[in-house]
């Protein structure tokens, strides 16, 4: 199948190095301490953060840092065929673990000992790159909840099809069976905290694809900062400062 036309356009009309349109909205869940909706093209994810609060299960309490928990789920209607997925299948368990560890790395957990932070992410529409979208949404929600973090974490994916490196794969490109590199960076220090890759890719090509994904992450970071700044300005305005 041809994923890049001779004119250099992808299936949905993008250029190889072009990202889908991203949109973020803070404060989607009223009862949560922090929440956000993040969209990358047709992928739509909602995240809610509760905490820092008292540890629910006392045996899990950590005495010198906060306990971070994460739960990832996909809505039944999020994919093309509507089916009831068993809760806690292997894929979602793994993604929960990945999101939790990524977020744990940037939350200053030692400032909140003996407390618990819960992150819930749900995929509303899945069109490729759900993992990245979830991490971006979780970052926004954590920032909205006012949880101290050393940096934001932003994520983006990239792939390699028809010997072209493609940024931000959609579902069709993702399910083509080609390599899929998901990267999460700490934009201030430009260090990679999350890196996942599937399928086979020569080492030098991999470097290029990863570089492209990192560029994507930086673009997402710029946008997220804008959104957060706008949000803070509004809060300021409402308080009448």
């Amino acid at each position, binding site marked *: 199948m041809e994923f890049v036309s001779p004119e250099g356009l992808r299936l949905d009309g993008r250029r190889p190095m072009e990202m889908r349109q991203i949109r973020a909205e803070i404060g989607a869940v009223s009862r949560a301490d922090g929440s956000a909706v993040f969209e990358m093209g047709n992928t739509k994810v909602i995240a809610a953060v509760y905490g820092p609060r008292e540890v629910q299960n006392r045996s*899990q309490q*950590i005495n010198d840092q906060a*306990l971070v*928990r994460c739960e990832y789920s996909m809505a039944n209607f999020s994919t093309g065929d509507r089916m009831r997925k068993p809760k806690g299948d*292997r*894929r979602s*368990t*793994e993604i*929960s*673990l*990945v999101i*939790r*560890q*990524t*977020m*744990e*790395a940037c939350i200053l957990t030692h400032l909140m000992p003996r407390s618990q932070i819960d992150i819930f992410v749900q995929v509303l529409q899945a069109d490729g790159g759900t993992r990245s979208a979830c991490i971006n949404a979780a970052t926004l929600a954590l920032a909205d909840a006012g949880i101290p973090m050393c940096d934001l974490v932003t994520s983006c994916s990239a792939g390699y099809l028809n010997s072209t490196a493609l940024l931000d794969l959609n579902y069709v490109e993702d399910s083509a*069976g080609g390599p899929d*590199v998901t990267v*999460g*960076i*700490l934009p201030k*220090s*430009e*260090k*990679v*905290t*999350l*890196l*996942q*890759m*599937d*399928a*086979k*890719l*020569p*080492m030098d090509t*991999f*470097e290029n694809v*990863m*570089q492209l994904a*990192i560029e994507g992450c930086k673009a997402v970071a710029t946008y997220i900062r804008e959104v957060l700044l706008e949000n803070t300005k509004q809060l300021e305005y409402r308080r009448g400062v």
Partner: protein
Amino acid sequence: MEHRLANTWWMTVNEKKFIETTLLSDLRIDGRRPFDYRRLTIKFGRDDGSSEVQLGQTHVMAFVTSQLVQPYRDRPNEGTVSIYTEFSPMADPSFEAGRPGESSVELGRIIDRGLRESRAVDMESLCVIAGKLVWAIRIDLHILDNAGNLVDAANIAALTALSTFRRPECTLGGEDGQEVIIHPPEVREPHPLIIHHLPIAVTFGFFGDENIMVIDPTHKEESVMRGRMIVTLNTNGDVCAIQKAGGVGVMQSVIMQCLRIASVKAADMTSKIKNAVESYNTERALRKIKRHSSSAALDVNKPDVKLENQNQSVDQKEIGDLSGHHVERLKLISEERGVSHSNSMEGLRQSPEQDKTTRDVNSKGADFDVVETSLALHGALIPNTKLEESRREKPSEADPGQLLADLEPAPSPDGAVETGEQTNGKKTLVDAVKPKHKRRKKKSSNIDAS
């Protein structure tokens, strides 16, 4: 979650500090250098498709089994490979019985991605009838002891088990040509899987903020390290999978450096795995040669003892190390029968196992059948004893004649007695019993050998 807690619990602050500080000067608590692996031991089970890998103290067992199933609808002509992990609560205090935990799921997914998404195993060759029947390969990974770096050990275990696995040959038959006949391994030689390349997982641990990294972290190092990256590559320089789930951030240049180090390690590991598999295959082939050569002896079918003797002496060389053992057994048995042999086997040592044999024989009251089967086992050495016996016991006709008759067919594998002198009524019963005994005992002698 529990895994993390249990891990940090038993480590004191001092211990953790110590590990971190020594790493600053490139020292590790077990005396390795930062990019050294622990000692790798690969063992194979008796059956095809089972392996046991030890990486230092980490101990992982892998079993591969196959089954005919209906394929997935979107891939009608491809077999399936699935990986199941079993974290035994015995291996680590943080492992709990029951539902697989997060770390178990992650381990399975990493190995799964390395093996399946990089298409290491040829799936299309597992197809029997497109859309109806394909082989489903199941890999079971059992963690027996967790001393750190489970992923690498489990990955090697999975690869070695896969490379020694053989699926039974099957053909289509029946009236409509749609019926699948599975041939047992005794009838038709089972097929090995087609494996295109070996994706080797290499784990890096990151410590501190200065990005100190080590390869193959131990359990203690794992509880101190701030980040982990697992790189799966093959010898062609392809990256098959990467997993770095959060943790401390690393520069892009460091990642590329890791990849280069990992590719060297992967080449090293691949050669180790290939050597181990090759030696297993040679051993397996030798086992088979033995079987065939003894059946060749059957074809000779000569009543002449001396001719058979020649045939057997070739076998004897092949068996080599086993022979001493067999001689011992023979000796014991013959003693039991009260025939005092003053043969060359006297000086050999006596192991407890042989004692047991003696006792067995005792309880049966020097039953001839027992003697016979144990002789049948060790066909290689029989001729010598036999000759001696026949020489010795010629004067007394009744009993030794019977003995000789029983001894004669011993080397033949399925006990088909064809030599002229043994045509007596006892033969049929003996025939029925012998192959069974023989197969079982043959196996046991294989264990001794391995």
